[in-house]
C-alpha cells in the first residue's frame, strides 16, 4: 500500500512542474495545418521516394530556416505530406512558400531587357547559371538606394565561368528568371565573379519579398510539384475558449461520477474514485512527459476515458455483489468479482483498441490526437482500474469488514 502512495504522489509532483509543458495541438494554440500532395513535374515519369523526401527536405528548409523545429512535417502515405506551422496566421504566405518551385535561372538575353513578368520558355535563352549553383543567398541592402535585395554567392567553379561570361558581355542584358517568369533584367555593368545581388526589377522587393526569395533560394528548388490539398488556419483565441469550456465540462462530469460511485458502491466507490484520481494523475504525467499533443478532441477523449474508467469498476463491483449474495465471504467476493468480470473487461478494451486503431490509421492530425488519447486511456485504465482499485479495497478490508459499508 505504501508503494502505491509513493507512486501516486510522484506524478502529482511532476504535474506541479508546470502546465505550460503541455504540448497543445494547432486547434488549441493557433496555427496553420496544410496537407499537400506531391506530383512529378512530368506526368509520364513516376514519382520516386527520393523526390518525395527531397521535397520534404526543401519545404522544411523553407518553413523552418533556422531549424527551430516548431514546424512539423510528416510524410503521409507515399506522396502526401502534412505540415503544421504553429502561430502562422497568413495562409497566402504559406501558400507561396510551399507552392513555388523556386527554380532560378540566369539567362543571357543579348541586347534585350525583358520586362518583369515575361514568361520565358524552357530553352528559349541560354542558361548561364541556376539556383543550384548558388552557395548562399541572403536578404541584404543595396542597389544604390539601400532597398532590400537578395545577395547571392556562387559556388567555386561556377563563380569562375560566370565571371568569364560577364566579362565578355559587359553592356548586354542578363535576365533573371524565377519559375519561368522574369523578375529582373539588368544590364551587365561589370564582370561578376563569385557574388552579386538580385534587385527586384523595376519595382524592387519589399522586405518580406526579398527575405522569402532568399529563403526559397537557400532551400533549393522543389524536385517535384507540390499541390495544396487542404489548408486550415486556426486563430489563437478560439483555442482558449475551447479549453475553458472543456475544463468546465470535465469538472462537472468528474464530480457527478465521484458522487454517484459513492452513492452506489459506498466504500468500494471510494476506492474506485481514488483509483480514478490516480488514473488522472498518471495520464497527466504521461501527457506532460512524453509530449503528447493535445487537441480539443484529445481532451474530449480524456473526458470520455474518465467515464469509461469507472466502467471497469462497475463490472467488478456488480460481480462482487453477485458472488457475495451467492454465499461467498467478503474477501472471496472481491477475488471472485475480479476474476469473473475479467473476460468482459478484456473484450471491451480490445474493441476499444480496434476502434482507436482504425481511427488512427484513417485520421488527420486532430483526429489522430483523439485516437491516441483514447487508446492511451484504455491502456492505463486496464492497469489502474483493476490493480489499484483492488489494492485499495483490500486495504479497506483490512480496516473494516462491515458489509454495509461496501454497498453490497
Amino acid at each position, binding site marked *: 500500500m505504501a508503494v502505491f502512495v509513493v507512486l501516486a504522489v510522484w506524478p502529482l509532483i511532476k504535474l506541479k512542474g508546470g502546465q505550460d509543458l503541455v504540448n497543445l495541438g494547432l486547434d488549441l494554440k493557433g496555427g496553420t495545418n496544410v*496537407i499537400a500532395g506531391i506530383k512529378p513535374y512530368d506526368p509520364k515519369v513516376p514519382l520516386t521516394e527520393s523526390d518525395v523526401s527531397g521535397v520534404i527536405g526543401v519545404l522544411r528548409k523553407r518553413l523552418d530556416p533556422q531549424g527551430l523545429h516548431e514546424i512539423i512535417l510528416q510524410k503521409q502515405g507515399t506522396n502526401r505530406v502534412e505540415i503544421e506551422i504553429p502561430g502562422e*496566421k497568413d*495562409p*497566402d504566405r504559406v501558400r507561396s512558400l510551399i507552392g513555388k518551385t523556386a527554380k532560378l535561372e540566369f539567362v543571357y538575353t543579348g541586347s534585350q531587357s525583358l520586362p518583369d513578368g515575361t514568361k520565358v520558355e524552357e530553352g528559349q535563352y541560354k542558361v548561364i547559371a541556376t539556383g543550384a549553383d548558388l552557395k548562399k543567398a541572403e536578404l541584404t541592402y543595396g542597389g544604390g538606394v539601400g532597398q532590400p535585395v537578395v545577395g547571392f554567392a556562387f559556388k567555386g567553379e561556377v563563380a569562375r565561368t560566370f565571371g568569364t561570361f560577364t566579362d565578355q558581355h559587359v553592356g548586354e542584358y542578363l535576365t533573371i528568371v524565377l519559375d519561368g517568369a522574369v523578375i529582373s533584367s539588368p544590364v551587365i555593368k561589370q564582370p561578376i565573379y563569385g557574388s552579386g545581388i538580385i534587385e527586384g526589377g523595376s519595382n524592387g522587393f519589399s522586405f518580406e519579398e526579398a527575405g522569402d526569395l532568399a529563403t526559397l533560394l537557400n532551400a533549393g528548388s522543389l524536385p517535384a510539384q507540390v*499541390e*495544396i490539398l*487542404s*489548408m*486550415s*488556419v*486556426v*486563430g489563437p*483565441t*478560439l483555442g482558449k*475558449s*475551447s479549453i475553458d*469550456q*472543456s475544463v*468546465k*465540462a*470535465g*469538472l*462537472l*462530469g*468528474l464530480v*457527478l461520477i465521484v458522487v*454517484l460511485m459513492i452513492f*452506489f458502491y459506498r466504500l468500494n466507490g471510494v476506492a474506485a474514485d481514488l483509483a480514478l484520481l490516480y488514473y488522472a494523475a498518471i495520464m497527466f504525467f504521461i501527457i506532460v512527459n512524453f509530449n503528447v499533443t493535445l487537441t*480539443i*478532441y484529445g481532451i*474530449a477523449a480524456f*473526458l*470520455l476515458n*474518465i*467515464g*469509461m474508467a*469507472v*466502467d471497469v469498476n*462497475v*463490472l467488478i463491483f*456488480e460481480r462482487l455483489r*453477485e458472488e457475495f449474495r451467492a454465499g461467498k465471504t467478503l474477501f472471496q467476493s472481491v477475488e471472485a468479482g475480479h476474476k469473473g468480470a475479467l*473476460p*468482459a473487461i478484456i*473484450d*471491451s478494451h480490445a*474493441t*476499444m*483498441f*480496434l*476502434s*482507436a486503431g*482504425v*481511427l488512427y490509421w*484513417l*485520421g*488527420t492530425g486532430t*483526429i489522430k490526437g*483523439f485516437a491516441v488519447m*483514447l487508446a492511451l486511456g484504455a491502456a492505463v485504465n486496464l492497469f489502474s482500474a483493476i490493480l489499484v482499485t483492488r489494492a485499495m479495497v483490500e486495504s479497506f478490508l483490512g480496516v473494516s469488514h462491515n458489509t454495509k459499508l461496501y454497498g453490497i
Partner: protein
Amino acid sequence: MKEQAVRFDFLKYWKFWMSFSGVLTLAGIVAMLWNAYTIRFPLNRGVDFTGGDLLQLKYNTSVTQKEIFDLVSRQVSKEPVVQTGVAPGGGTEVIIRVESGARTKVLDTLNQAKPGYEVDQDMHVEPAFGAELAMWGAIALVIAWLLILIYLGFRYRFTFAVGAIASLLHDAIMVLGIYALFRIEVNTPFVGALLTVLGYSVNDTVVVSDRIRENIRLYRGTSLLKLSNLSLNQTMRRNLLTTGFTLLPIYGMLLFGGPTLKNFVLAMGIGFLSGVYSTWFIAIPVMLLLEGALAFRRKVAGEAETRMGPATPGAAVSAAASGTGGEATAPVAGHAGPGPAEYKRKKKKARRR
C-alpha cells in the same frame, strides 16, 4: 436450475421491439433519401467532405447575417452559406462557407466593406481531396465493423458475434438517421465519433454474451431463450450503470462545449444510448433467431440442437420461417423427443464455450 427473479421478460415482445427499431431505422432512411433529393447527399456534409472554403470570423460589434450575405454573394458564383450567432463574450460570430478558391475574394470584400474582424478559422479544402476523405471515412467504418465481427467471432460463438454487430449496425444507423433528420453537419470528427460508438457500444453486448456463455455452462439443459432472458436481467444493472457513467462526461461536454465539440459528442451520446437498447432488443434476438435457424438445419443432419423453449411459441414459429422457408414448425416440435418441455442441449455445443 436455480430460479432467479426475472424482472423483465426482455424477449417476450421482441417482435414489437424489433419493429419499433425498424420504424426508427426507416424514418432515418427516409430522412436520408429526402436529403439526397434536396441537398444532393443523404447527410449535411461539412467542408472537409465537400471541399470549399470556410471562414469563421469574430466581430466585436453587432453584424447581421443579411449584410454579410449580400457582400459575399456578389463575389461568388454559387450561393454561399452565411450564419451568424452571438459570440461567447459578446460580439458576433460569422460563419461563411463558399466554393473552393473564393476565400481571397471574400476576405478582400470584407476588408473593404466590413473590416474589424478577427479570424477564428480559415479553412480551404480541395473538392477532390474532400471526396477522398469522405470515402476513407466510410471505409474506416466498414473495416472497424468487420474487425469487431472477427474478434468477437473468435472470442464467442459466431451467432453472438453476428448479433453484436447487427446491434452495432443499428446504433450507427440511429446516429446517422438523427443527423440526417436534423441536418446536423457531418465531418471527419463525426466519423471518429461513430467509430468510437462502434468500439464502445459493443461493450454491453459483450457483457451479456459473456454471461450467457457462463449460464450455458452452469445450467445445462435449459433453453437458450430462458438463459438469455436470465442473462439480460442479471446484467441489466451493470449495463445501465456503465453506459450511465460514460454518459456523464458527455453530458458535461454537451452542456459547456462549443458547437464543434457538441456535434462530435452528440453522436456518441446517441450511439451509446442506442447501444444499450440494441443489446437488449437487437443483438440477443438476432442471436437467438440465428441459433434457431442453425438448429433447424443441423436437425436435418440428425444432431440434437439448441431449441427455443416453448414459452414463446412465436419465437419457434419465426425460427422456422426465417431460416427455412416453408418447412413447417411441425418437424421442430415433433423432434421434441420424449415428453418434457425442456430440450436437452448437446454437450459438444455446451462445451464450445
